[in-house]
């Protein structure tokens, strides 16, 4: 059990996601970056897709109320226990009464796994507090004195201590590169694919996705029927604005999709903040166009 003393970013409980309800208008949600969730859970001794705390943006201070193993993954940033530095990507056994402080940066995204799993009510097969829409009531706002219990009691003494190599993760850029494959509407775009965006500047970022700013990239509307969306789809609307869809995307959309981000690179979206510049790189096997 932990208790927040100060919350400075957006914190939600996330697991592997709630699948099977997108046809009811509910996006799967789940961790923004699945490899980071799995890494943090591995460190804490949990199942790979157990529920953990996802921190977006600035950090937090928390009191550990029950001794437990834990792990921090995502973009490493300064972490202290009663003033002593602690590492990311290592199993940590933290005693009751310790005050943890996670700095506000660098980077945008951290996953904090608690041994036993972070508790949020199990809803339709998942503990993800998704959608975070306040109107739905599934997201509990995290503020000072919010307590997070564990799903199962944490082990009474330290188990295996693991160390992972964060180099396996996509690089904590910049430069931000996203590998893309042609999407279902690739052939609907004009033969001159140079009109499509190669670089996207982030205007807004969140669990719904990333909205691009800058010059319109394809200002001619293509009429499509409404269809289901997938994580990583890059939609280009009639004004030419690109939208990179995240875990909490709208479940249907009507804009053409020239590209889709490869699943392995989806976690990069969690690290993007307004102003970041993202390069789209055709993945191996994708059709390449002359520059």
């Amino acid at each position, binding site marked *: 059990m932990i208790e927040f003393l100060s919350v400075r970013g957006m914190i939600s409980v996330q697991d592997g996601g709630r699948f099977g309800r997108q046809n*009811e*208008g509910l996006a799967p949600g789940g961790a923004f970056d699945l490899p980071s969730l799995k890494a943090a859970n591995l460190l804490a001794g949990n199942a790979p897709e157990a529920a953990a705390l996802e921190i977006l943006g600035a950090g937090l201070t928390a009191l550990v109320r029950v001794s437990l193993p834990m792990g921090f993954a995502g973009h490493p940033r300064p972490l202290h226990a009663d003033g002593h530095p602690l590492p990311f990507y290592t199993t940590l056994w933290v005693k009751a009464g310790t005050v943890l402080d996670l700095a506000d940066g660098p980077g945008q995204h951290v996953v904090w796994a608690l041994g036993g799993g972070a508790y949020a009510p199990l809803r339709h097969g998942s503990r993800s507090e998704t959608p975070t829409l306040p*109107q739905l*009531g*599934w997201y509990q706002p995290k503020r000072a004195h919010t307590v997070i219990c564990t799903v199962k009691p944490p082990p009474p003494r330290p188990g295996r201590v693991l160390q992972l190599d964060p180099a396996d993760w996509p690089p904590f850029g910049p430069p931000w590169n996203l590998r893309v494959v042609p999407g279902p509407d690739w052939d609907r775009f004009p033969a001159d694919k140079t009109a499509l965006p190669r670089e996207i500047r982030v205007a807004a970022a969140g669990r719904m996705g990333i909205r691009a700013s800058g010059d319109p990239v394809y200002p001619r509307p293509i009429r499509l029927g409404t269809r*289901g969306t997938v994580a990583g789809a890059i939609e280009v609307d009639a004004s030419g604005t690109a939208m990179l869809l995240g875990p909490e995307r709208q479940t249907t959309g009507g804009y053409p999709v020239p590209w889709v981000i490869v*699943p392995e690179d989806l976690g990069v979206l969690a690290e993007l903040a307004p102003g970041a510049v993202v390069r789209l790189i055709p993945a191996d096997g994708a059709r390449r166009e002359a520059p």
Partner: protein
Amino acid sequence: MTPAELWAQVRTARYGGAAFLFEWEEARAELTERLWALDRRWRAARPETIADLIVGQNSVVATLRGVDADPVVRWVEEAFLTAPAPDRGTSHRIAVVYDGEDLAEVAETLGLDPEAVAARHAASVFRVGWVGFLPGFAYLTGLDPGLVLPRRAAVRPKVPAGAVAVADAMSAVYPLSSPGGWHLIGRTAKPLLTPAGPRLTLLEPGDTVRFVRDD
């Protein structure tokens, strides 16, 4: 057209690394019925190979649980060809007070009086085309052709939950308060979304919906 003839016209495309898109050139009644049947089969069968199956206007997206694509394509084809049509689906009656913020403007744009807009909307028999945008937001097809008009020029930042709205050739009820670009003609107290209940959403593709005047 028979299901087999429709299937012969499908465009199948890989949708990124973890999904397939099955899409047809245009929406038509026989296709819509097949999509509803497919959706129902999916809800009942939940094959392990498919994480999500999303019915759209003239498409289906299936997301893969594993890496093997063949079983997913085979399952979708088999269900599309053989699943029984949902007949009329579940019939819902939704009580509406026609006092929406945009009712007067809608009436004026259409050259009708507000009473006629309400009467025509309440006389339409809707079918749920598909669900999307928000949890439980059902796109209702079958709007009286005399009530068709494009979406509002500007999106309203906050549409209240329960607002009954029209846009294009469709109607909808906002299950939650949210931004929205549809024309608000009324409101209902009927919950379309039960976040705490075992059954999350009320309306499924293929269901029949009638609005009943409550004003």
